[in-house]
């Protein structure tokens, strides 16, 4: 493969990385607008929560013509400062907004809900959920002296959800939040999107030590939300993944990427990917995972992944070419799809997500240091360059695999959402470390395997076989008989 072709191949790989990065950035965590005050912090989220399919809404963006059965939740949360002594809070939540066209409507089909998390003097803590109707004000009395009144007032000039919270003579210390629902009408002809500004007024009654009495303070919270036509985001996204990923495969093929792999390389990768599929889908899922994953910590540190990573490292070690990791994973995924997951073009980006970074690591590491990949060169006592390479290949594969799986593929393809704390602390970081360690300890095994199959001495080896067959004399591969007596 010429230098120009190689450059093009690297560009395609880099482009695919940028694409995946952009893909993951399209799913931002829900971020509310924050208002910090002396009495605490307000959080204003619109829309709030998750959609029909379970995907988290993007804050500040609503789509037009929203079915009133679902609507969008508006959530206002108030984290009260520790030293504030608050006796009563009244929220007037804007349910219509101000914009050049009247597009947002209060959803009178849904009730106002909310929760007060309180801490009373004497250290008693608890929470109280409340629910209010739209048309008539209702009073919810708790076991505690709690009074909460919520109503949805509607007249020609003003539409708002009102919630009044007080605990009698006790102060409220903790968090207070409430949600109500709005829905959107269709955007008229000529409008692609429109900005709607929502105002929420909060009156807080608190004890002021300077004047030694309860005083009130009013806050105006402002939230600008864009209402636009539905962008078919998921479909466009899903289709782009499929098209771009397959485009990458075809582009690499046209650019001669596969020419850098000999037939022996291709077969080696194919066989090792088949091994991975057998190991995971047939033996692993049925026999090994149910047993091994029950050992505390084994699942989190991906102990059962060891043979999989070992096979991946063997492939990278034997082939030693950029792209070998991605290609092995790509093939493993296709075989797994045929046999288990179902052929789905939308999954095609998954092996790229986990394989491109380890391949780039190997590429850059070699370019920057000029030391042979997986070399036996000692770095510090007991640790060689090979161990480090193995560690990073395993680590990056684990890191990007879990991130892409839990943050992109599960939510997009299966609408399965997982808590970010669980994903990062319990899954991604330990599993990346586990895969890294497995990668490091796989390198000596890969070395043994390579010695045993003698790919490097390909021609002499063929000649020896040929010569031995002609002369009808047995042959011995130097060094291997001693190292792997069981195998030979």
């Amino acid at each position, binding site marked *: 493969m010429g230098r120009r072709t190689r450059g093009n191949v690297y560009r395609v790989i880099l482009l695919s990385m940028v694409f995946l990065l952009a893909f993951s950035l399209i799913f931002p965590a829900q971020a509310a607008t924050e208002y910090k005050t002396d009495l605490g912090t307000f959080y204003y989220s619109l829309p709030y929560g998750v959609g029909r399919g379970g995907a988290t809404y993007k804050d500040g963006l609503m789509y037009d013509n929203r079915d009133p059965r679902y609507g969008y939740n508006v959530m206002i949360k108030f984290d009260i400062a520790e030293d504030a002594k608050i006796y009563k809070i009244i929220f007037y939540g804007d349910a219509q907004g101000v914009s050049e066209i009247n597009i947002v409507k209060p959803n009178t089909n849904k009730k106002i809900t909310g929760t007060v998390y309180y801490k009373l003097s004497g250290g008693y803590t608890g929470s109280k959920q409340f629910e209010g109707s739209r048309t008539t004000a209702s009073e919810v009395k708790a076991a505690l002296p709690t009074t909460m009144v919520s109503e949805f007032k509607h007249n020609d000039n003003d539409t708002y959800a009102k919630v009044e919270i007080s605990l009698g003579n006790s102060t409220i210390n903790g968090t207070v939040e409430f949600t109500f629902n709005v829905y959107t009408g269709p955007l008229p002809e000529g409008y692609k999107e429109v900005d709607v500004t929502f105002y929420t007024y909060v009156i807080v009654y608190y004890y002021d030590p300077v004047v030694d009495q309860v005083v009130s303070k009013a806050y105006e919270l402002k939230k600008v939300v864009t209402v636009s036509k539905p962008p078919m985001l998921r479909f466009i996204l899903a289709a782009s993944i499929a098209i771009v990923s397959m485009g990458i495969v075809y582009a690499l093929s046209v650019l001669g990427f596969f020419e850098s792999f000999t037939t022996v390389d291709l077969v080696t990768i194919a066989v090792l*990917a088949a091994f991975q599929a057998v190991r995971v889908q047939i033996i692993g899922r049925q026999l090994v995972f149910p047993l091994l994953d029950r050992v505390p910590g084994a699942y989190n540190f991906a102990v059962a992944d060891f043979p999989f990573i070992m096979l991946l490292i063997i492939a990278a070690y034997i082939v030693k070419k950029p792209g070998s990791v991605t290609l092995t994973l790509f093939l493993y995924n296709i075989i797994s799809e045929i046999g288990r997951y179902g052929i789905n073009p939308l999954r095609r980006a998954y092996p790229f997500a986990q394989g491109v970074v380890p391949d780039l690591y190997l590429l850059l590491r070699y370019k920057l240091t000029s030391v042979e990949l997986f070399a036996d060169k000692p770095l510090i006592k007991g640790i060689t360059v090979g161990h480090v390479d193995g560690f990073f290949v395993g680590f990056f594969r684990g890191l990007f695999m879990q991130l892409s799986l839990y943050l992109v593929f599960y939510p997009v393809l299966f609408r399965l959402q997982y808590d970010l704390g669980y994903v990062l602390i319990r899954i991604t970081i330990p599993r990346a470390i586990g895969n890294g360690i497995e990668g490091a300890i796989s390198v000596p095994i890969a070395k043994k395997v390579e010695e045993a199959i003698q790919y490097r001495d390909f021609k002499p080896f063929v000649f020896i076989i040929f010569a031995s067959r002609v002369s009808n004399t047995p042959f011995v591969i130097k060094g291997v008989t001693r190292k792997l007596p069981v195998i030979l």
Partner: protein
Amino acid sequence: MEFTIHPFITLPGELKSIVAGVFLLLIVLPLVPGTVSYLLFKILGISGFRRLFSYEARDSPIHRLHPLTKLLTSSAIGVGVALTDSFLGLLIFLLLSLIIRIPANPSERKVRGLAILLISNVLLIGRSQSFLNPAFSRVVTGTARGLTVVYIFPKSLRWMTEGITVEGFVYGAIQSIRVISALSAALRFISTTHPSEIVYGFKTLKFPIEVTFMIAVAIKSIPSILEKTSVVISAERARAMEIVPRSISRNIFKKIAATFKALVDALLPVIIETLREARQMALAATIKGFRAYKQRTYYKEIEMSKTDIILTLAVLALFAFIIAAQFLAYKYPFLSLFQ
């Protein structure tokens, strides 16, 4: 319920929370998937799984179809369930994936195995979503208001999850339809298509020749790998190596370590042997002029029959319908079934 999950009631506040958290994290939470996997393994066994994931020779209309038609059907169901949100739409895809199995005349064992596998998937996904989906599990500080809370986790576990809800389980069970529809469609594909024919499907889709070749080699290698693994494990067993600990005794960790080592030891000879065979295969392919010319000829050509063409067009129409539904549901509400 409270007592069974909090058996540390006599411990003081924070310590109780930490101990209960560790207990839940390490013992209780893994218990459900562990039990389901164990039961699955007990009921089906390795041979049952192998049967489930292997080709079943039959003379049926589905078996006679062109691999591309079957590949596209499997793919349409996979894409369809990924894009559909409505429960009814998902059910339609699930029914479709199950109905298309009927003409394939699967064996009773295969049907039973599939049913067990699908039900276990529903249970496991429902279980994980009941306490790991933040939309349903943030019952103390977050979004999950007014839901049916089964259990609230101790403070020490709140970084991960806050509670278990019935709604989370139901949500997970409904979403699992996506997984089991795709799984069922995939199993139908491999159980009705001979491994050597699968590659023709990819060839027709104009996959790069190298990729098609690798898929063919990989699929061809699988039975050989299984056979070699079986031989090596049998040989190791004959030498008194205990692959799976038979009893839980004081030295259980040693036994697990021994199992781990035995599996690696069993794997290495198979890898080496298979890679050597693979090298011969590469030699054979090179000798036969593989990649020497851009245009390839094939030993066997599978022609598409009229039925194949009609069905392929129907599947493509289904693809188009699924895609159109994403755009047109905005105007025609009935299409939101597939949106």
